[in-house]
């Protein structure tokens, strides 16, 4: 007899037979199917053919892989030197920056912090009292200020509105050298914190002092590493026409801030420069963080490679 073709079996029966072969029918299903198998030869024949097919598949000899698929460890070396290198570099730079910061801070605080604040305060008082003095005086005083020329144009621009500058400016130069010296050495945050009166008088630019006064909290490294901070601070503390700036800003605070900040990013230092260069500190801190961030990104990118 010819065995029935597949088309004589519907999908449901096929599934029943298939599950029966795998012993996956429930007791009830199995009993019902076995009854049908006894009664339907076509169903029985199909079952046998399916069993034969499954048997052939199960009897297939397993194939041996032509080679091992083990991975080459050399291809996945995580390059510990890079990770260690970046981390160490970033940590070292951060430590160096913080060290410089604190050296500057401590030196200024221990050295000329008080004198600087005193002279700056005096300068401010003179500025407010001599309200009618010619802007020319301020300009000439500003030019004599021993700071870098960069901020001088700012000081020049400010007095044009006709404010204070005058005799206050004359007292400014003396204060300037001291403030400049203190600033170049120290960098500030603590110095700035010690001069709240100065900071307050500066008006709108007071936002800078507040940043400066918050610096001490962020700079919490040991004093032994201060020299690094001092060296790092110097470039940013170079343009220090502080004497002219505080005086000039007493009357034109907003203008001053705008001019200084627009043309000379380190200019906002000036007012607080009398007490230290917090912006320089911020820049260095940001720089150190950027180094760490870049190192972290590179590390992360490399770790993803395998």
């Amino acid at each position, binding site marked *: 007899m010819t065995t029935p073709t597949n088309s004589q079996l519907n999908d449901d029966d096929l599934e029943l*037979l*298939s599950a029966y072969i795998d012993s996956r029918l429930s007791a009830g299903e199995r009993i019902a199917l076995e009854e049908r198998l006894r009664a339907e030869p076509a169903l029985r024949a199909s079952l046998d053919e399916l069993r034969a097919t499954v048997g052939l598949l199960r009897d297939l000899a397993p194939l041996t892989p032509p080679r091992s698929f083990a*991975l080459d460890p050399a291809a996945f070396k995580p390059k510990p030197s890079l990770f260690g290198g970046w981390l160490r570099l970033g940590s070292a730079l951060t430590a160096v920056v913080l060290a410089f910061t604190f050296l500057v801070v401590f030196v200024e605080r221990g050295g000329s912090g008080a004198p600087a604040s005193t002279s700056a305060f005096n300068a401010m008082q003179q500025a407010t009292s001599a309200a009618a003095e010619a802007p020319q005086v301020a300009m000439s005083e500003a030019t004599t200020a021993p700071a870098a020329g960069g901020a001088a144009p700012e000081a020049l621009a400010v007095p044009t509105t006709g404010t204070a500058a005058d005799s206050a400016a004359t007292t400014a130069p003396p204060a300037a050298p001291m403030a400049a010296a203190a600033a170049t050495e120290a960098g500030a945050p603590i110095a700035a914190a010690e001069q709240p009166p100065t900071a307050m008088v500066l008006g709108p630019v007071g936002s800078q002092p507040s940043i400066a006064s918050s610096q001490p909290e962020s700079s919490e490294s040991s004093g032994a590493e201060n020299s690094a901070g001092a060296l790092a601070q110097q470039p940013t503390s170079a343009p220090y026409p502080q004497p002219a700036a505080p005086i000039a800003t007493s009357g034109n605070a907003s203008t001053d801030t705008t001019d200084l900040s627009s043309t000379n990013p380190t200019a906002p230092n000036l007012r607080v420069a009398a007490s230290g260069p917090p912006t320089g500190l911020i820049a260095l801190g940001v720089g150190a963080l950027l180094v760490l961030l870049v190192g972290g990104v590179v590390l992360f990118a490399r770790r993803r490679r395998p």
Partner: protein
Amino acid sequence: MTDEEHRLIATAQRGEVESFNALVRLYEGRVYNLCYRMLGDADSAADAAQDAFLSAFRNLRGFRGGSFRSWMLRIATNTCYDVLRARKRRPSVSLDAAGDDDDDSSPLQIADAAETPDEFALRRELATAIQHGLTHLPDEQRLVLILSDIQGLAYEEIAQITNTNLGTVKSRLSRGRARLRDVLKAGELLPARYRHEAEGYGN
């Protein structure tokens, strides 16, 4: 999964390639066989198996417990599907060509000491016919047939590996078996002993 496997996986997840290679040695037979049966030739199977293990190592952190075998076979399955999809986009490589290339790329069949030469030849012919039949099944049916009847896995594990449910597994399995049965019957390759048994019930 044994404790040893747990330990190997944990170490491998930390980037230890040698631990992962111990896992590779445990599963490369299965993975290679799956790839061969799915793709039809030894070269494609070797490439796919290597890709599967590479992918597994790269994504090892994504293994969050459960059966490593199922996880590994799922990766191998996906790798095979990628190859099959790529083949369909390049119609110059026909399935028939892959399936008939048995002289160059079929795996070595080693004669069983108890086999006669005729039995060996028949077995070899059957293996070729079965692979040919498998190649002409829809991919999903072929996969389930391989996992169930060649790899011996239960419905539940197959459902996990294929990311489907039991009903789908049963349906694809039954249809796949029926289709392969038709191919073998057409080639008169259903073994005589089975045919004899089938005929016996008709009387």
